[in-house]
């Protein structure tokens, strides 16, 4: 039983990361009607930026906050400069454009930082804490916590602020929103900014576990897609629940059925410390 709960918690850690990235996908999907295939690469790029900030001696949380701000601005800029000109074009055009962005951002990351795998510091201790006979990793708990706080803040923003209401209105009914005075174009850009920031959270949380490299988020993006689709693509709650469920499920399958080990495990690294300990 102790092992079961350990695996659930470490599954939640990976689940929190899928959930944040899945929510980022859903926010863009709801407002622009397209899947942003570049979401993962945007997160990787942001995480490299964070690495640079850390490398220049900024401590973790300030670097984290700074990265979120830059990612947000970058997301807004991408929407304004790249997506805006193709607004109203067939969905396929926009989707292909985001695939182009994926390749472009990946190339830019390699060009700026090189292809080497880097260590990315964790703000959390990797020590376990013991509850009864179970040992939970503080890092896992921290990852779940940060992802859930990010998701919760965003939910509060969408539910309870005027701007959040405008974003939702623009997503469900752009024509009507214009008539009441909502600048729909800026709402789309804001959605991209928020998604980019949320993606950056998932990138910075996963990097200490899987190490930082330019292709770091590619596998994770697939799981985030799965989570978003599981939740129905339109539903922010569905994406988060889908992400968490997927993380836990994959981790438990990997633990209890050896055939699911290795490659079925998300990047094969989550919960590895815990696995070694048991």
């Amino acid at each position: 039983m102790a092992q079961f709960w350990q695996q659930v918690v470490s599954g939640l850690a990976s689940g929190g990361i899928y959930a944040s990235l899945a929510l980022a996908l859903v926010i863009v999907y709801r407002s622009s009607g397209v899947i942003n295939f570049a979401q993962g690469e945007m997160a990787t790029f942001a995480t490299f930026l964070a690495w640079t900030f850390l490398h220049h001696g900024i401590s973790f949380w300030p670097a984290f906050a700074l990265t979120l701000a830059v990612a947000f601005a970058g997301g807004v800029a991408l929407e304004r400069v790249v997506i805006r000109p193709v607004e109203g074009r067939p969905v396929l055009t926009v989707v292909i454009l985001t695939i182009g962005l994926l390749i472009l951002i990946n190339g830019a990351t390699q060009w700026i930082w090189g292809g080497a795998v880097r260590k990315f510091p964790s703000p959390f201790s990797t020590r376990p804490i013991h509850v009864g006979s179970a040992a939970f990793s503080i890092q896992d708990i921290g990852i779940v916590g940060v992802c859930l706080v990010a998701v919760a803040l965003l939910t509060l923003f969408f539910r309870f602020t005027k701007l959040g209401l405008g974003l939702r209105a623009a997503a469900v009914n752009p024509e009507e929103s214009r008539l009441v005075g909502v600048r729909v174009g800026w709402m789309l850009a804001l959605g991209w900014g928020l998604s980019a920031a949320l993606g950056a959270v998932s990138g910075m949380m996963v990097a200490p576990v899987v190490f930082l490299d330019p292709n770091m988020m590619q596998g994770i993006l697939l799981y985030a897609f799965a989570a978003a689709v599981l939740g129905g693509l339109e539903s922010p709650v569905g994406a988060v629940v889908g992400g968490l469920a997927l993380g836990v499920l994959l981790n438990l399958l990997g633990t209890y059925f050896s055939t699911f080990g290795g490659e079925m495990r998300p990047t094969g690294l989550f919960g590895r410390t815990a696995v070694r300990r048991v």
Partner: protein
Amino acid sequence: MAPLLELEDVEARYGAIKALHGVSLAVGEGEVVALLGANGAGKTTTLRAVSGTVRRSGRISLVGHSLERRSPEAVARAGIAHVPEGRGTFAELSVRENLRLGAWTRRGRLHGEEERVLAYFPALAERIRQPAGTLSGGEQQMLALARALMARPRLLMLDEPSLGLAPLVVASIFAILRHLNEEEGLAVLLVEQNATLALEAAATAYVLEVGHVALAGPADDLRADESVRRSYLGY
């Protein structure tokens, strides 16, 4: 004094199809103006030309400020609330959220605003948390109107508020309109199929025919006009 809203020689097109061929009309401060015409005459398009949801040219001005190049967002901010054909409420959002969106263009606190507007529509007050999509047709029309009032517009544009509603509901909506006009000086540009109703509510009326103004004048004169009676009033 310049009228509140003035259209001069306004044309509008949907792609290659021209729907308005030079429409001129004016709405004075505190005035209710009716826009009549057969199906396809261009009534809806005229409102859309004002709010900028169709490609238009010509001159459109609100107290002298030109609107013809402005986006729908900017027209809303200039003080025009447009309740489109088919109501256009946000079905997924609650009644309260719909009302808040109505006040989007307003800055600062909105203390008491919701109460002020809901006083006209007690049925909505009871359904304040309900998604707008679950309201009845009449309630949705009331919500559309209430939402428009939240903006405290200088001009309210209504597109067929009576469409599909029971006579009692229509009567209550028109009673509210009259009250708003008489007590608060709200100016209204009203598109309506029910010409009897529209000519009662309005001081001035325009009759559109295939994209241009065929007839205009005080509502009383139009009511007495032989051709209007035959074509629109049916007696």
